[in-house]
């Protein structure tokens, strides 16, 4: 058996676990196999520089508003025809979109949103988070994309997968919480068994009830123990354990629609504690006093001083 027998896409098929047993044995015997494995291991440690979505979106909104030229047309004479035409179009469009496209649920600053998936699984979205999935194909493919934080109560069925930019979580039927914000990835299992795949270090872990997994950029991934039966944010509390303060500020921003401005203070110092989700003043005081920061409030901006 020589390498010739392998086709011109066998490396692609290898990555997809599509090689037959014979092909795999042959490939593993080749002198280059180890290099290929190292290339994949090495590449899986790489990441594109982070990208600030909120900032970019704000600037898109600004630039767009500058460019908008009023294009209102006067169509008083034709409006009846217009309505008839748009009703037909709307019905068509609705059916079309419903058929193919992704369904998106998103929650605003400081708001939580509860909804049910087509199979009866329940989702509770924390503030400023969003979930996207294909409603029509849901029962065949229970996969959704999450940005932000959400709690899931999954009905029994085929594999249920939550994809985030940093990793994915899959289960059969259980209760769990996923938090994926910028470079923070945290999963907590409340019931059943949860499989966590972390894209950043290509690791896979299984979580059982009361166990959590947390990976913050530039820190070692850790396993957490907890004893609450629901995520704290469901009780109007945001709780942090040895979390760099910048994520806490980030959570405050999302909860209360704020913007922190600061210079020259170390935003990686660790914070352990909680803040209420329904009282801005107390929340700010609790967090900022604990790290000895003075602050002044200007509208939605909070200016921090050492």
């Amino acid at each position, binding site marked *: 058996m020589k390498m010739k027998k392998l086709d011109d896409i066998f490396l692609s098929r290898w990555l997809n676990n599509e090689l037959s047993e014979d092909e795999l044995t042959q490939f593993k015997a080749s002198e280059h196999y180890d290099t290929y494995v190292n290339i994949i291991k090495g*590449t899986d440690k790489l990441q594109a*520089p982070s990208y600030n*979505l909120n900032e970019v979106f704000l600037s898109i909104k600004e630039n767009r508003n500058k460019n908008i030229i009023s294009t209102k047309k006067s169509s008083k004479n034709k409006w009846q025809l217009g309505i008839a035409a748009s009703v037909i179009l709307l019905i068509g469009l609705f059916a079309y*979109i419903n058929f193919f496209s992704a369904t998106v649920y998103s929650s605003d600053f400081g708001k939580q949103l509860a909804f049910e998936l087509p199979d009866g699984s329940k989702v509770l979205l924390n503030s400023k988070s969003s979930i996207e999935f294909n409603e029509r194909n849901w029962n065949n493919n229970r996969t959704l994309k999450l940005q932000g934080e959400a709690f899931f109560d999954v009905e029994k069925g085929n594999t249920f997968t939550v994809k985030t930019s940093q990793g994915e979580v899959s289960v059969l039927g259980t209760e769990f919480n996923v938090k994926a914000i910028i470079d923070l990835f945290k999963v907590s299992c409340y019931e059943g068994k949860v499989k966590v795949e972390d894209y950043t270090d290509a690791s896979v872990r299984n979580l059982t009830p009361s166990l959590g997994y947390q990976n913050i950029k530039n820190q070692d991934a850790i396993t957490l123990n907890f004893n609450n039966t629901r995520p704290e944010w469901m009780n109007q509390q945001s709780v942090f354990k040895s979390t760099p303060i910048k994520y806490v500020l980030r959570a405050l921003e999302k909860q209360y629609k704020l913007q922190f401005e600061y210079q020259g203070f170390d935003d990686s110092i660790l914070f352990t504690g909680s803040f209420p989700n329904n009282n801005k003043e107390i929340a700010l005081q609790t967090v900022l006093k604990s790290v000895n920061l003075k602050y002044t409030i200007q509208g939605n901006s909070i200016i921090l001083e050492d």
Partner: protein
Amino acid sequence: MPDSKNNNAGLCKEKSFQAFFNTNATLLRNYLYYKYGGNEDIDDIVQDSFIKLWDNCTKVTLETAKSYLFRIAINQSTSLFRHNAVKLKHQKEVKNINHNSTNESPEYILEEKEFMVKLENAISSLPERQREVFLLNRIEKKTYKEIAELSGVSVKAIEKLMHKALLKLRTEIENIP
């Protein structure tokens, strides 16, 4: 149901547009980044493409918006990057985030570091199509099918590019002493 269920609200409303932006912007930016390297113009192209999409939101359905967006961005960047082709070769492609401390021996860590440098250089020297496909698959975890849809080619073509990319990376790395 609350109004945030916006699958039939079209793209024009800010909320639905922002949701679309949030799910697609990072991918588009990284797609261009993997293809063309770290050039500041990439961020402008991403922004311009989203603005164009928003301006044309009435003509585009949510279903077609993604491919429309990528088409705008790719069209814009091809004219722009022809001039930057040489400059880009020297630019760092991706940054290593693996700063986690390990229990490995110093020799091993050094060896691994050297390998990562070789690997990053090899990735930079890949032809742009191969690099784009390889990094979208490995870093963005996109399937061959998803990548094929993004760039409007067949899955077979992606499989071939992927294979070529790995082959080229391997020869590059093994030929550096």
